[in-house]
């Protein structure tokens, strides 16, 4: 191969590498940025959040702390500026703990599941208005946890699940109901500042429908 041909081959190889690099870099970026990414971390509990939920007006105690390893993970992802150092424990059972986690313009809630947790965040004004849908989590053995947060003034939440329907009292601006495996879960309902709210609930482990 002459020197000229060798240089052309190298130039083509270099061009191909640059093209691959550009395509790969684009793919790595993806098309989506998770919501609430890059929001500055809350340093205090916002007044609007305190106004919406009495538990956020209470003094924080050692009992309110999220387990260190989990707290680090939540803070590391930092959705909506959530700050686990401001957490309040609303409900604690042998198996699960439900925390309110103040964020920036939002209030997040986390239900512990083994070593981990399920978490969701809502705008503070939506919490104040009582427009917060429930979360669902599959538990060991197939039971389903239906859980969520509510503003002051909501005393109970009704979970419709056929013969396993139940009405649970709220505790610390939160609720947690557990229905057995296989229960036909239907809705979660409560009455708050915006009136009667009804949300459909689903078994997270439900099989895919027929295509």
């Amino acid at each position, binding site marked *: 191969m002459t020197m000229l041909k060798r240089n052309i081959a*190298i130039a083509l190889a270099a061009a191909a590498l640059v093209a691959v690099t550009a395509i790969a870099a684009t793919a*790595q970026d*993806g098309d*989506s940025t998770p919501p*609430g990414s890059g929001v500055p971390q809350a340093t205090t509990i916002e007044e609007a959040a305190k106004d919406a939920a009495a538990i956020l007006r209470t003094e924080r105690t050692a009992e309110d702390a999220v387990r260190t390893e989990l707290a680090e993970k939540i803070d590391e992802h930092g959705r909506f500026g959530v700050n686990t150092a401001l957490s309040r424990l609303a409900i604690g059972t042998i198996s699960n703990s439900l925390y309110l986690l103040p964020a920036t313009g939002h209030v997040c809630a986390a239900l512990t599941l083994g070593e*981990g947790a399920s*978490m969701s965040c809502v705008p503070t004004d939506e919490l104040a208005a009582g427009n917060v849908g*429930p*979360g669902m989590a*599959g538990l060991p053995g197939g039971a389903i946890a239906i859980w969520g947060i509510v503003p002051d003034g909501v005393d109970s939440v009704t979970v419709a699940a056929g013969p396993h329907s139940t009405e649970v009292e709220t505790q610390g601006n939160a609720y947690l109901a557990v229905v057995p495996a296989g229960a036909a879960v239907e809705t979660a309902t409560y009455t708050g500042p915006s009136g009667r709210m009804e949300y459909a609930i689903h078994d997270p482990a439900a099989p895919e429908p027929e295509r």
Partner: protein
Amino acid sequence: MLKRKTRVALLCALATIATGAIAPTQADAFVSYYNCTLKPVGLWCDGRANGSFDGLHSWDFNEGWYDGSWDSSVLVCEHVWKPASGNELQSGTCDYNHVAHYYGNVQCACYEAEVRQYSTGNRSISGYADAAF
């Protein structure tokens, strides 16, 4: 005309840049963004649809969200499962508009991360997963 040493150096530099772009950065762990346009109710969406990474990994965080207006009309669910066995790492979770699941310590690089939606019709949803290992 380029000298041989210059050509080699140029190729090495380009290869380094290309490798850096393709491989995930260790500082940020391994990440996957994925999204599905107008996904039917109840069907799982994963990186095969459209995303940054399609493959198995030790996903210890999986997150899903509705791409439209968050008016609590769309329930988003997520799960991490092992295609080889069909079993979920843990049971999945759901929440309105947005859901995130921290899975704890995951060692096996053998899981797929997916999201799905429940609403009155087809909806566009997105997901993000990352792995510490």
